[in-house]
């Protein structure tokens, strides 16, 4: 499908990734990339929406921005309470905010990994998602 060889589409089609990103442009970009790579990509534009979708769809991975209207990424983590769940999706905090205190807090609330959004090209994003969902 892409120039880089990837795991079998059958396995990947079962993997759901929830993109939580208020910036429409970026949300769309991640969706395109993830879908092209064979993932089922779902979109939410704030923490509140993400909570509902995560509850219903049970994604395997949540790509979580921190700074969002209505409900921020940290508030989402507080409400979602991933560590107490039976179904525990991986949470990739993907933000252009790099306040160390917020990053620490996100980890404390159950985030799996933090990446500065500006550093990840589509290729790098896919590599990280693959790694997390291995």
């Amino acid at each position, binding site marked *: 499908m892409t120039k880089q060889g990837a795991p079998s589409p059958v396995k990947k089609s079962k993997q759901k990734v929830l993109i939580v990103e208020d910036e429409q442009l970026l949300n769309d970009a991640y969706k395109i990339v993830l879908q092209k790579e064979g993932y089922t990509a779902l979109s939410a534009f704030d923490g509140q929406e993400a909570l509902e979708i995560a509850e219903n769809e049970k994604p395997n991975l949540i790509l979580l921005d921190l700074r969002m209207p209505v409900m921020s990424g940290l508030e989402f983590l507080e409400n979602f309470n991933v560590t107490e769940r039976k179904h525990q999706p991986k949470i990739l905090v993907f933000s252009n905010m790099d306040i160390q205190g917020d990053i620490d807090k996100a980890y404390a609330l159950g985030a799996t990994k933090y990446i500065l959004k500006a*550093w990840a090209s589509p290729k790098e994003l896919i590599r990280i998602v693959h790694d997390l969902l291995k």
Partner: protein
Amino acid sequence: MRKRTLNRRPSVSVYVIASLVVGLAFLGVTLLLWQNASQTLQQQFRTSAQQMSDNSTDAITKRLATYEEIMRGGAGLFKASEDVTRHEWKEFIDTYDVENRYPGAQGFGYAPYIKPADLAAHEAQIQAEGLPSYTVFPAGERPIYTPIVYLEPSTGSNPKVLGFDMSSESTRRAALFLARDTGQTSMSGKVILAQDTGQKTHEAGFLMFFPVYRNDTPISTPAERSAALMGFSYAPFRVSNLLNGIFGDKNDPNVGLKIYDGAGRNENAVMFESSDFKTLDAHPPIAITTQRQINHHTWTFVYAVSPNIISARDRQRPLATLISGLVFTVILTAFLFQLLVSRARSLAYSKQQEVQEAKDELLSLASHQLRTPATGVKQYLGMLLEGYAGKLSPEQNNMLSKAYTSNERQLEIINQILYVARADSGRILLHKQEVDLNSLVVQVINEQTGTIKSRKQKITCKKSRGKLIIMADKQYLHMAIDNLINNASKYTHSGGRIIVALKKVKGEAMISIQDTGVGINPQDAAQIFEKFTRLDNELSTQVGGSGIGLYLCQQIVELHGGRIILESKIGKGSIFTIYLPIE
């Protein structure tokens, strides 16, 4: 427009005043305690002095009462047998062993009551008893005579007073008549004893009389008593001897005593004055005056008492209270001042922290806002380059790659500006953890291998022998090393060589990045670590740079307590060496 009030730190004087207010309150409490202790001491002193003087006065009156009993015994002897011989009287008095058991009385005697008509017969009778020179004196006619006929012990000057008519002298007469008329013991006023007549020193004395009445005669009225009177049992006293007899050597140097005859302090009627009375009375912390009625006669006792009757420990208590209170107050005030200042400092510090954190957040927010659009560009260019929208022609690929690189530079500059702003405001907070420098360097090299290979350069890493682990902020240290290796590659011609070496040197971790690049002029070496400095060289136009990297490098290394050293030769290459302490 609304004015913002600034939270200014109060000046030191505020803390001084606050501490002083509390200090003054404690000083007040201390003074109250001191005053209270002083009053208690005064009270204790007064009570002790009163008790002491009462005891002393009681001892004197008790002793006089004892003498009175002996006198009454003498009177009883005459009651039993009207004819008491000199020998019998001596025997009687000797049984009391007065000199040893009741020292203080000069003696105990008997004086008959003689009418003028019987005087000659009386003298003849006594002379016949073995006292041939006996006469009643002083000579002269008087309505009655009360000559001393017996006085025991008959030692010292006592024998010379035999025959002395006591009623010849008014003070004695008054006391004699009082005893006669009342039937009770009487006491004379101040007299000079007949024994002391003709002596150089005239010591104050007094006498006590007890009447002896004839048996079987009515004595209900003064007239009957006067008619029935036979004589007097009597005792003469020198006051100094009396007191010496009572108190002996137990003379308390802290208590002075002065006794006046009669009520009040008549200096002509001083009966006694202890040797230290004047000294003690000159600074009388307390003087106690007591009047006592003894045998129908008044004596005034004046005691001058020194505070030393209270134990030194008790006397020093108020002062000790004051001193310890003052010391406590001073310590407390100083402690409070310290506490206030340090509390204020910590408040000011946390306020500063808050301001800094707010600044930091603002910086992060600004960089977030700048990064987001560039991130959009990066994503879409990346998608094109990675073929998500179909295969690109080489020309398209080339152009998009340039756009991508340019966007990357923009992102890097945003990032660096953020770090510079943080470094400038001292807001680079290190999150130290154990960092394996060998692995960190290998990681950085791996990340840059692609770029280095594209420049046809060779990079080698000489790891340290053992593990090289230090406490450091991994992210920042990564940034610094990344920057130095990136620079080495950027300013080295194609085909050049980069050597990264790690070593443990005298308790420090050393990381050196050596290149075979263009090198740096020695005079430029100093400014190379300054912000926004870019040196011109043959490669500077080909490679991008913001002039921030080395500044940040140095900031990061110095924050870790380390240093960065540059050695370079134009045309030969440069060596940047980082030294970091191993904690």
